[in-house]
């Protein structure tokens, strides 16, 4: 069951629902009584600018789920590429889905600057990404998700990591009516390195779900994960992080952290960090905290002349900033910083 299969078959019963353990906080079935009609092709000339404009002219656009050029982003052996991948939903009350493969050959490097850009209302959007990395390949994926407040949006990425390869990801989102950004990684160990970071800044009645599943299958693999979020209004943030270390995947080093700020009485955060360890010799840890802004720190900042809403924004920005600072690509880091700053107002 998935949004993709529901869109393909037209059967609402295919939608994930809250009776499934992995979807209990992101009930798509409950949010959609019927599947809306298929989205129109959209107007390619009216796509407008994206959040990573100026960082690369290499752009792959999916407009209402339709690829405007290639459906495979390939990087040849030992080559380097910086590409923008834009998922644009330029429609209202309709549904669409798209799929892309990203193939990064041995020793190749890819910086993927990905954006979800809602240009309509109440659309249903599905994106599927399949990453394949060759030995020693390196990928940095930076995602800025900006969906409409009443949209339903799901993105599912699968990553096949290789020995000595590196996959580093930062997903930042402002949520939607129901939104899930999921990443599933098959980790072979063998000196492979994985970083899976996330951040959510959600207000109003928005919802954002960052779900990750990492399967460590071989000796000597590393995973580090940091997700930070702030929820205001009646928003709901969801973090599900599962790391499974298979029998024999010794010397795995996996660290997961999720930390959230609740900025209003009606906001909610649901978190489920899980470590399933079947190997003997591993270093695994997870930390999870949910709290409010520090009142003493707020008073300290205000006592220096900063109005309360600005003081709150400053502390919130600093809180989420830790995730942004870990982005390696400088231009993407600046774009992410600007994105965070532009979303603080919605939380005030």
């Amino acid at each position: 069951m998935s949004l993709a299969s529901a869109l393909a078959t037209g059967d609402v019963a295919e939608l994930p629902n809250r009776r499934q353990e992995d979807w209990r906080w992101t009930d798509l079935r409950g949010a959609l009584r019927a599947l809306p009609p298929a989205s129109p092709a959209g107007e390619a000339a009216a796509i407008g600018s994206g959040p990573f404009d100026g960082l690369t002219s290499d752009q792959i656009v999916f407009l209402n789920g339709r690829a405007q050029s290639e459906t495979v982003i390939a990087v040849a052996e030992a080559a380097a590429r910086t590409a923008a991948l834009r998922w644009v939903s330029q429609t209202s009350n309709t549904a669409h889905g798209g799929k892309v493969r990203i193939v990064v050959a041995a020793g190749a490097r890819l910086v993927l600057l990905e954006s979800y850009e809602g240009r309509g209302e109440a659309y249903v959007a599905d994106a599927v990404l399949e990453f394949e990395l060759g030995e020693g390949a390196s990928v940095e994926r930076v995602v800025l998700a900006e969906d409409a407040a009443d949209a339903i949006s799901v993105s599912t990425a699968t990553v096949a990591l290789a020995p000595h390869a590196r996959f580093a990801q930062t997903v930042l989102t402002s949520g939607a009516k129901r939104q899930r950004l999921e990443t599933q990684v098959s980790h072979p160990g063998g000196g492979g390195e994985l970083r899976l970071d996330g951040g959510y800044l959600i207000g109003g009645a928005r919802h954002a779900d960052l779900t990750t599943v990492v399967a460590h299958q071989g000796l000597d693999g590393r995973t580090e994960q940091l997700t930070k979020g702030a929820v205001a209004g009646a928003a709901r943030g969801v973090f599900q992080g599962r790391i499974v270390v298979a029998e024999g995947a010794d010397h795995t080093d996996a660290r997961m952290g999720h930390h959230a700020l609740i900025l209003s009485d009606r906001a909610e955060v649901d978190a489920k960090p899980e470590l399933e360890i079947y190997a003997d010799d591993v270093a695994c840890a997870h930390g999870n905290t949910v709290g409010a802004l520090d009142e003493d720190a707020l008073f300290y900042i205000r006592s220096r002349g900063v109005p309360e809403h600005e003081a709150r924004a400053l502390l919130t920005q600093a809180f989420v900033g830790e995730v942004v600072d870990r982005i390696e690509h400088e231009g993407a880091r600046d774009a992410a910083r600007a994105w965070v700053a532009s979303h603080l107002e919605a939380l005030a």
Partner: protein
Amino acid sequence: MSMLSVNNLHVRVGEAEIIRGLSLAVPAGEVHAIMGPNGAGKSTLSYTLAGRGGYEVTGGSATLNGEDLLALEPNERAAKGLFLSFQYPLEIPGVPGLTFIRTALNAQRKARGEAEISAPEFLKLARAEAAKLKIDFDMLKRPLNVGFSGGEKKRMEIFQMAMLSPHFLILDETDSGLDIDALKIVAEGVNALRGPDRAMLVITHYQRLLDYIRPDMVHVLAGGRIVASGGPELALELEAEGYDRFVKAAA
């Protein structure tokens, strides 16, 4: 006219009345010290004047240059020129010291209807003031107070004070946690800010700080009220005799 004027102030924290009819006047150009035993209400007075939540004023008044301080938000008090140097400065993870101070300075300027300070002008000022206080400039690029020693935090308070250039300074136990060298540097920083347009309230438990920051007046706070006032010699008396007779007098 006094710059700071506190008249018959009563303050509750929770169920307990901590300040019980405190009156105090500090004219422009003067430095007044408040000394008192633990639990006398010293920190309550400084937090109440700065506007911290949870301090309920049940009677009396406090004015700065004739304006009702107690009606203002903490940030508005700062923009009017009030500055509290904290006994325990907070750590602000993720916010570099320079960013913090520039945000504060520009917020104050905006509140007063003044133009923002330009980046080069700000940096020039910051470099000059940091050098005076022997603060390594790279330290200002680190998150404010995070991982700083007690002495470094107090120096950062004085640095902020110098950058924000307030009219009325409250130093709450600025000497606590300082060794003698740090104390001298901090005192020099404070003394550099003395002037005819400024006034200060130096709150301390020990006389030692007053060897370096010479007060015009010393007040003894006990049981939530000023129970004695005098010249600098009063601090020496307290050092020699202790607070006992004042605590008894206040009871």
